[in-house]
């Protein structure tokens, strides 16, 4: 139905743009990771594996990467624990208020990421809302200073930010479950718990996987929440990259770490796509 010319006109411009501004930059990142910095602070375009060797041998990088993954894993877990029951409630029990409550899940997403991180900073700080509240009601006498500038603050803030990201795909998956399957399960004598675990939950797994992927990947690469709320013990892998591209001036090493992150992220996306396919029915 569409002519060859039509197809060419719609295909070539976006293909060219994406090649120049996405594909080439990723390839450049790949190239940079094999280059090095001279003593005169210029980037030398000679190919070697030094950056990767440094990554393998310096525990700082490994430990920070593992800590970032551990933070991201906790964020993912908490987001799912908060998000799943809420999505389930929305889909099965919200009744006429379903639309309104759905909008209420979306609205926090429209509040700037930075603003929400900042809000947590004003809550958790030593003169913050929480500490002064606790002293006001005489629960504590001195401010609790582990609240801010800690991995706890980073996990809490990122959980707050990514919980809606897990709710929406889980809700979508639950909404796609034919209700007569649930009724059939009941009619055949299953208890509500059996119906949930044998029918509803397995069918919602694609949503869980999609939500978990979003939460994990996006929190793994975050560098603003750790800078704002993490303190020295909450530093994540992207913060190292930021400093390598800034004051520490070692773009090639920074590129190598970024490329490592890119590989981790793309493998996770690939894995989650496989999992979603495996668990989806229809």
């Amino acid at each position: 139905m569409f002519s060859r010319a039509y197809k060419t006109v719609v295909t070539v411009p976006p293909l060219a743009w994406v090649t120049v501004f996405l594909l080439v930059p990723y390839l450049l990142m790949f190239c940079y990771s094999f280059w090095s910095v001279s003593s005169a602070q210029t980037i030398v375009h000679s190919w070697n594996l030094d950056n990767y060797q440094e990554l393998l041998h310096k525990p700082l990088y490994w430990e920070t990467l593992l800590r970032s993954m551990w933070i991201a894993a906790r964020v993912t877990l908490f987001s799912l624990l908060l998000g799943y029951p809420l999505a389930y409630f929305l889909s099965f029990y919200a009744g006429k208020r379903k639309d309104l409550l759905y909008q209420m899940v979306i609205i926090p997403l429209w509040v700037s990421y930075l603003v929400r991180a900042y809000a947590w900073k004003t809550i958790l700080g030593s003169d913050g809302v929480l500490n002064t509240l606790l002293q006001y009601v005489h629960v504590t006498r001195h401010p609790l200073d582990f609240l801010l500038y800690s991995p706890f603050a980073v996990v809490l803030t990122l959980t707050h930010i990514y919980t809606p990201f897990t709710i929406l795909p889980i809700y979508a998956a639950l909404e796609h479950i034919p209700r007569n399957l649930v009724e059939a399960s009941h009619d055949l004598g299953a208890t509500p718990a059996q119906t949930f675990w044998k029918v509803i939950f397995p069918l919602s797994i694609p949503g869980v996987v999609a939500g978990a992927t979003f939460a994990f990947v996006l929190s793994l690469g975050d560098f603003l929440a750790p800078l704002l709320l993490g303190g020295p013990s909450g530093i994540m892998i992207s913060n190292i990259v930021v400093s390598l591209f800034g004051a520490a001036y070692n773009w090639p090493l920074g590129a190598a770490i970024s490329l490592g992150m890119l590989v981790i992220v793309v493998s996770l996306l690939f894995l989650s796509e496989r999992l979603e396919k495996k668990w989806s029915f229809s």
Partner: protein
Amino acid sequence: MELFVSGAPTSIPRSRWLLVHATAVFAFLYLPIVILILYSFNGQGVGGFPPHHLTFDWYRMLFADGPIWDSVLNSLQVAFAAMAISLAFGILAALALDRAQFPGKALFRRLVLLPLILPGIITGLSLLMLFNLTGTKLSLMTIVLGHGTALISVATTEIFAGLQKLDRAQEEASLDLGANYWQTFWRVTMPNLKLPIIGAALLIFTLSMDEIAVSFFLIGRDNTLPLEIWGRLRRGITPEINAVSTVIFMFSLLTIVIWYRLRVRSKGGAEVGAELIEPTS
């Protein structure tokens, strides 16, 4: 009765725990926003319980604050320009994915959508390397290119979803009746995509206004609003930041209401942005 409306079988008892949980999660999601707004009126700084000396001073200060408004203006320019780029290429990319077969199509689809899920730092840094190597000076223009490119993913997803629901017979009829492709595109295809395009535009606009991770690396001399706020956060915090955040939040809320009205009036159409995070199945 209400249980039937919600589609739940009556056999499952309405769980009180689910209700408690849902309330608690909503409280968690809204607590920081409420506190943010509340303390924008607090005369005594950003913390401290209970808030007292309620005042509009921070708003007065905000409206007299030159650098903030300069950065708002910069952000608006960036958002409009990024919107134009992402929509233009997003519409074409969605049409290409829907209607053309070409080698590397699967790779193209993945590449276009990747910035949606990729941490902003990777998109930002890879573009920084491109601009550095080509000797492009960092400015608002480089941020526009960054946002425009990253948000093609949003436009493509929304518009592709719209195309899937489109009735091909209308376009076929238009072509059969002698309209050329150009006329058919403007008179049949585009009017049918009005809603997804408006939805994508609103979403791109808001995302660009809020974006910081990509802009962080591509910033030249002029700040966007989030980077201006970021700079101030590093220097020490005042409720003026709460005030500006509250104003932006109100504008975002207004955008949602407008979108919702449009959607309700035309009946149906997807939730804005919902396609972005639906499972792929």
